[in-house]
């Protein structure tokens, strides 16, 4: 990008996100078919989700409950009588050629509006507005193969929730942070699994630049961002692209652009720009969605602990550092992994250290989520128990964990196979200590002279001789004894 620093300073970035999440209901939005990922094509269908003539939708109450939950955790105003509308357009992945959705129409607002999600970054709290939360049915999936297009309707009619933020985000980093927080809150509330790689969380973004405080600039809509990382990358790219255009005196064209992960750029999807007329009208096959105060209260009581509360609990009852508590609660599966390991006897601070340290490093490198790693809480607890009992050293434990993550094998098996059982036998240790003393007269003299750092060096020599298996505390004590240190 050739935009000068001076030009860059002129513009303020304005980003709004449209997030679709699949609700974690057992059955679809308007029929009894199961919601499941990865079933053989067209095996989870019925006359309703295939849009057969004569079939009628019946609203799944569980989907409304999850929608209300989401609205509550996003501090929205919940409408007591929202309606479903039909969004009319033709495409083979919507079998009825209309989608049952909700619509911002006078007198017919969506399920919930006017919420807020607070973001904390660098000690500053930002409040990002939530414009609306609405429910709709998902489409089927087109599969293009061998010059033919096939349709899998398993996903057709699965419940979706659309969350539209206000254009309150000011950078790509902030957008990523918002999405991370939003995902965490929704996961904790049990609303969605929020897995971008499975498409249970999808995100489009509207991006524009403007003079700070001035009127909004022309925006582009960015699609096809399939991970948190790609959201940040795509928005960073788009921000720079628009800045260059404006700095060069050119105009931003209002259009939809697709993110190309491999090439690291957005490109125009060349879709017609005239606004499509979806001819929304109230869905006559469904009654208005009545959500009364009593129902809302029942739903509120059922909401599980949210990330913020959990983070505080980790700091206050487990004594974890703020940073670790923040990382552990970033996704619900990570927090659940942590708590399960603690439940199985792991010391909270030790478990936290391993998770935010070695385990997180492995996840980053491999690009996987906690629920995809080969190690389960019981296996990690087993490893930590070996360290606790003194069976292996902390250093060996790192090596063992690495293999566990790679292969999914149990800790004790690896320890036995590699002969990593820690040497705590005094006689054997004395032999090793004496050998080290004999080989290092210089440092021994230093120890005698009261230089403590030399002890550390000698411990290291013993550890080396034992190939990491010596019990470091015992070695330390024995060295001092044998040298006769002060």
């Amino acid at each position, binding site marked *: 990008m050739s935009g000068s620093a001076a030009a860059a300073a002129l513009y303020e970035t304005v980003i709004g996100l449209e997030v679709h999440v699949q609700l974690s209901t057992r059955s679809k939005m308007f029929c009894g078919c199961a919601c499941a990922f990865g079933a053989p094509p067209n095996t989870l269908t019925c006359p309703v989700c295939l849009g057969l003539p004569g079939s009628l939708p019946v609203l799944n109450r569980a989907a409304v409950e999850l929608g209300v939950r989401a609205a509550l955790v996003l501090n929205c105003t919940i409408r007591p009588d929202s309606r479903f509308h039909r969004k009319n357009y033709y495409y083979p992945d919507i079998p009825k050629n*209309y989608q049952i959705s909700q619509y911002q129409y006078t007198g017919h607002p969506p399920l919930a509006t006017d919420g807020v999600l607070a973001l904390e970054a660098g000690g500053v709290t930002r409040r990002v507005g939530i414009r609306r939360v609405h429910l709709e049915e998902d489409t089927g999936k087109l599969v293009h193969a061998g010059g033919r297009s096939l349709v899998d309707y398993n996903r057709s009619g699965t419940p979706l929730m659309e969350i539209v933020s206000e254009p309150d985000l000011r950078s790509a980093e902030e957008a990523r942070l918002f999405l991370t927080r939003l995902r965490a809150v929704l996961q904790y509330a049990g609303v969605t699994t929020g897995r971008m790689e499975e498409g249970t969380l999808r995100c489009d973004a509207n991006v524009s630049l403007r003079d700070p405080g001035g009127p909004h600039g022309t925006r582009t809509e960015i699609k096809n961002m399939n991970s948190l990382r790609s959201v940040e990358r795509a928005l960073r790219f788009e921000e720079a692209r628009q800045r260059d255009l404006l700095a060069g005196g050119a105009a931003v064209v209002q259009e939809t652009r697709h993110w190309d992960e491999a090439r690291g750029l957005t490109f125009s999807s060349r879709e017609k720009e005239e606004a499509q*007329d979806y*001819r929304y*009208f109230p869905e006559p096959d469904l009654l208005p969605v009545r959500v009364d105060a009593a129902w809302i209260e029942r739903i509120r009581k059922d909401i599980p602990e949210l990330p913020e509360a959990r983070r505080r609990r980790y700091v206050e009852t487990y004594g974890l550092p703020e940073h670790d508590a923040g990382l552990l609660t970033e996704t619900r599966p990570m927090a659940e992994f942590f708590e399960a390991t603690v439940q199985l006897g792991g010391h909270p601070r030790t478990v936290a250290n391993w998770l935010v340290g070695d385990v997180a490093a492995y996840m980053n490198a491999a690009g996987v989520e906690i629920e995809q790693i080969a190690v389960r809480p019981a296996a990690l607890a087993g490893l930590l128990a070996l360290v606790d009992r003194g069976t292996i050293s902390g250093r060996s434990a790192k090596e063992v964990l690495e293999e566990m993550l790679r292969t999914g094998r149990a800790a004790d098996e690896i320890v036995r196979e590699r002969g990593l059982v820690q040497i705590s036998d005094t006689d054997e240790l004395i032999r090793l200590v004496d050998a080290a003393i004999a080989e290092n007269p210089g440092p021994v003299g230093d120890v005698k002279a009261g230089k403590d750092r030399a002890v550390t060096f000698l411990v290291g020599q013993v550890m080396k001789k034992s190939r990491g298996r010596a019990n470091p505390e015992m070695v330390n004590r024995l060295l001092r004894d044998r040298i006769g240190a002060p």
Partner: protein
Amino acid sequence: MTGPHPASPADRPAWDLRACYRRGELSPSEVVDGVLRRIEAVEPQVRAYLYLDADAARREAAQWDRAAGAEDAPPLAGVPVALKDNLCTRGVPTTAGSRVLAGFRPPYDATVVTRLRRAGAIVLGKTNCDEFAMGSSTENSAFGPTRNPWDPDRVPGGSSGGSAAAVAAGEATLALGSDTGGSIREPGAFCGVVGLKPTYGRVSRYGLIAFASSLDQIGPFARDVRDAALLLREIAGRDPADATSAGVEVPDYPALLTGRVAGLRLGVVREFLQDGLDPGVAGAVGEAIRALERSGARRVDVSLPHAPYALPAYYIVAPAEASSNLARYAGVLYGHRTTRAADLIGMYARTRDEGFGAEVKRRIMLGTYALSAGYYDAFYLRAQRVRELIRREFAQALESVDVLVGPVAPTPAFPLGERVEDPLEMYLADVFTVPLNLAGLPGVSVPCGFAGDLPVGLQIAGRAFDEATVLNTAYALERALPAPGRRPRVVTAAERRSSPA
């Protein structure tokens, strides 16, 4: 052709068949054979059926031969029924009178079909109708018109013309139709049978191929009021598969037919007795009202000033919903798909162009227009307001009277071809029936006399979910009429062969 003691089992009402089965005087097989013989004789003339499975009907009848006479036999055991072809039947062709659904066999039964089977009814086949129930004469069927059993040169009414004609001609004991703007009541009147549109939400729409979802209701055709009551009882009631079906208790309609109307407040709707009413219709309707008065009903003149706006409002709301409901017929999953398309848009356009008839296309275009950005408020929204006014006006009127009465249609059955080129003239056939669909209220068409040799129907409308009063009023009229049981005399195939005129 037949008097009060029918010679053929094809002319007996269902309640009578049940009694005959119990006494062992008839068997379902004999009845089905009688009906099939009648079909064979008159069907070349009437053409009520699009699909008939005589073998299946005989098999089902044989299964009932022993059980139908039992004390605990289900209410419609061994009774042959016909279904309008917009009701889904598992594995049986269901076209809604449209080429776009030629060859379509649904994988499921409509709720009403399930209920009929559970009640022991024998399904004979599927009856002809205007394409997607859009029409008032059955001339909009892609598979050719049905003819009125009373006069082969006239229409049977529509859109449920096949069902009405089948019951009138003894080609079925009972039949189901659907009514979006009059599609049960108008053909009921034209064919001289009882046709009832229940309260919106009374009968499940699951499996009814939608025309206009907020107006469609399934209802019974029968040769007398008791049979209509019996059939309604079997199909009515809440269905979890239809969110708009109501959880209102279903009374035992036949048991409530007392024929007593003393003190009943009979609202005579001034706007329904307008100028331009066919004199024969006006005469028969006037006589029917007097007959009810003689039975003790009290006449109250009622004005419904917004009723004349019902037809224009209906022709916004119904096509708007239809334009969306019919979007699915695009050649992707089922039904007709063009063989001449290069791309997706071409496939949609050609499939729909080849699959739909002129009237369906007209209504899809009307509805698409009415819902378009910039027109929505002026058309769809305004029509909904008119609908609300009409709903309130009817509810208010029904606070001071028990039923509303008037003609079903301004004329008796009109000649085939007379109105096909003039949609507005065709739409006028529904001018008295459409308001009840907009208001969601129940209405029955009951034979009330003749205009010349053509039957005339009296429309009796009632309060929401008060089908019992509507039916009882119709029953009282039926008993007060001078010549009950007059049936059409259809020229049979054999007679046609012997008179080459």
